[in-house]
């Protein structure tokens, strides 16, 4: 009897399987190897870049749930990132909670704020919703500035939330007799959290709730008619996505920035941050979990890389007074703009679609379809 093709999906259980084929299992194994061995092979600069990528990947996955799957456009991501960062300082720094407590607390606070915004999405749609969430950035900045006892006002606050689980302190890891740097330890911590968040998001999207979200995205009236509760799903996807954004924010504050102020998360700075996350999902691929991670690899890493190699690029300059055509910070923002435009023109579904096209080609080889 012929062996059943692993690509042939015959029942629901097959459809749900995460790593159903040999190739996918190989991919999983490779990812695990990269996860374990990466910090041992790369130098601290690249590890710090990858740490930032991990934070952006978490936020990207959250935003992709909201925008890519449920079709709700939000410019408010930066606000929820900020909520996460300040919650991290409040619960982890001020109250001294351990990582396993303050990170879920960030998620809960973010989710609560998201659930407050969610009902607005019931009333408004599309571009109106985008503008209202833009308003969230400005209102949010105002409260971040005014609520001085928690946020430190305009001057900001340092984020001292502990990054350790029990005896494992990820900032100075000491395992089996060898010592690891801050970058190495944080790489393991952050990418482990990326894996958990990706799994959670994947589980949401491949089941009943994910299909409901996609139905809402494709046509919300039709979704409601076939029995999808708009109020329930829109509010919960806002809550979940904001919760994930707050987790990203908590880690962004505690592991990457270590000092935060309102101008990073609200107003214009917040708009730039929010759009950076939208760039992540556009470049990576809307409506895929892997898209959030792939997009973060490009969007988060690029500015750090140009910053690092600015001396080798003659048209860039580090300071306004240096010679060169464009300052590196401005160049990076222009690059964002270009990335968004180029991807939307050439590959609207992002790197994930590109990857899928390549794999389909080889799966069908030597036939063209």
């Amino acid at each position: 009897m012929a062996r059943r093709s692993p690509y042939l999906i015959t029942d629901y259980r097959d459809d749900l399987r995460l790593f159903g084929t040999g190739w996918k299992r190989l991919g999983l194994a490779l990812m695990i190897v990269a996860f374990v061995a990466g910090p041992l092979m790369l130098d601290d600069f690249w590890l710090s870049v990858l740490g930032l990528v991990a934070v952006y990947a978490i936020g990207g996955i959250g935003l992709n749930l909201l925008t890519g799957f449920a079709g709700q456009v939000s410019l408010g991501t930066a606000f929820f990132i900020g909520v996460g960062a300040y919650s991290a300082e409040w619960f982890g720094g001020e109250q001294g909670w351990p990582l396993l407590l303050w990170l879920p607390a960030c998620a809960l606070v973010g989710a609560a704020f998201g659930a407050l915004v969610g009902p607005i999405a019931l009333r408004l749609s599309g571009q109106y919703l985008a503008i209202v969430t833009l308003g969230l950035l400005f209102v949010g900045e105002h409260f971040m500035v005014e609520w001085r006892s928690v946020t430190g006002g305009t001057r900001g606050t340092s984020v001292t939330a502990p990054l350790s689980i029990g005896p494992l302190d990820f900032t100075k890891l000491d395992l089996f007799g060898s010592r690891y740097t801050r970058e190495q330890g944080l790489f393991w911590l952050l990418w482990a959290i990326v894996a958990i968040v990706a799994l959670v998001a994947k589980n949401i999207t491949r089941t009943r709730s994910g299909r409901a979200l996609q139905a809402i995205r494709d046509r919300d009236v039709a979704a409601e008619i076939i029995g999808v509760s708009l109020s329930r799903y829109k509010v919960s996807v806002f809550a979940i996505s904001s919760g994930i954004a707050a987790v990203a924010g908590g880690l962004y504050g505690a592991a990457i920035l270590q000092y935060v102020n309102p101008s990073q998360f609200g107003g214009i700075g917040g708009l730039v941050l929010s759009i950076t996350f939208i760039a992540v999902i556009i470049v990576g691929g809307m409506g895929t979990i892997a898209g959030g991670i792939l997009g973060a690899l490009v969007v988060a890493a690029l500015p750090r890389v140009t910053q690092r190699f600015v001396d080798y690029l003659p048209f860039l300059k580090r300071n306004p007074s240096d010679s060169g055509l464009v300052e590196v910070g401005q160049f990076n923002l222009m690059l964002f703009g270009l990335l968004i435009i180029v991807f939307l023109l050439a590959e609207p579904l992002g790197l994930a679609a590109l990857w899928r096209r390549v794999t389909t080609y080889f799966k069908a080889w030597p036939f063209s379809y």
Partner: protein
Amino acid sequence: MTEFLQLMVAGLALGFTYALVALGFVVIYKATEVINFAQGGLVMIGAYLIYNFDTTWGIPFAPSVVLAMVATAGIALVFERLILRRMIGSPVFAQVMITIGLLFILQNVVTTIWGAENLNLGDPWGISTVNVGDVVIQVKDLWSVGLAIVLLGLFFAFFRFTPLGLAMRATAIDQEAALAQGMSSKRVYMAAWGIAGASAALAGMSIAAGATSLSPEIQFYALLAFPAIILGGIDSPLGAVVGGLVIGVTQSLTAGYQGDIAPWLGSGFQSVMPFVVMVLVLLIRPYGLFGTPEVKRV
């Protein structure tokens, strides 16, 4: 009473400035159903071009403004022709994001060319004022008011009486049906972007002239014009002006009185107030005061 009148005048002047910015949003939205996030960038580049023609090249002020209007319209047209034209038919979200991409590019091109310092737009009004009773009015504000009213009249006449205006309205409602009736969507889109570019330069002038100096900050006016257009309804020129006025007056009155009435809201609440008003109005009227409700089909 004088204080109140003074605040009202300041608010109305600010409101007409917002209205000028908002009209640019409206004309593009009416034709393409896309909120053009790059409008702030166009406003900014328009103002800097006026500065460049007037102060750097020594052309008199009025011709500089006209030249800047033409040049900004040209930039908008090039963008429409080269990039947005390819996006016709793609999801609105994608088109909006493309304009955000353009905003990032414009912002940084401007700061790269002209720097981030405060510049002085060589306008003929400067800080001169006129007194009406006890109320002091800036001459530049009177110009903003006049310009906004003239422009609104032109827009109204354009959409109401010209074939191109009619084509624009038709294209906004149903692109395919308009095409079938022989209306060229390409011409409509180009016209919309051209008009938006020209009015952006005017708005830039009205923001940066007078006592305010020219800096990249002026694009933030475009962000504050969002509440105005949303409040008025994105597809209504009249709504843009009314929305602009409501937001301007609200902001000015908040700046004047909030410190006495509700100090617990903290300082600087006037820059947040427009968004609060916007959210409240939207929750009651989801398509703004004068906007057309969207008909949903299944």
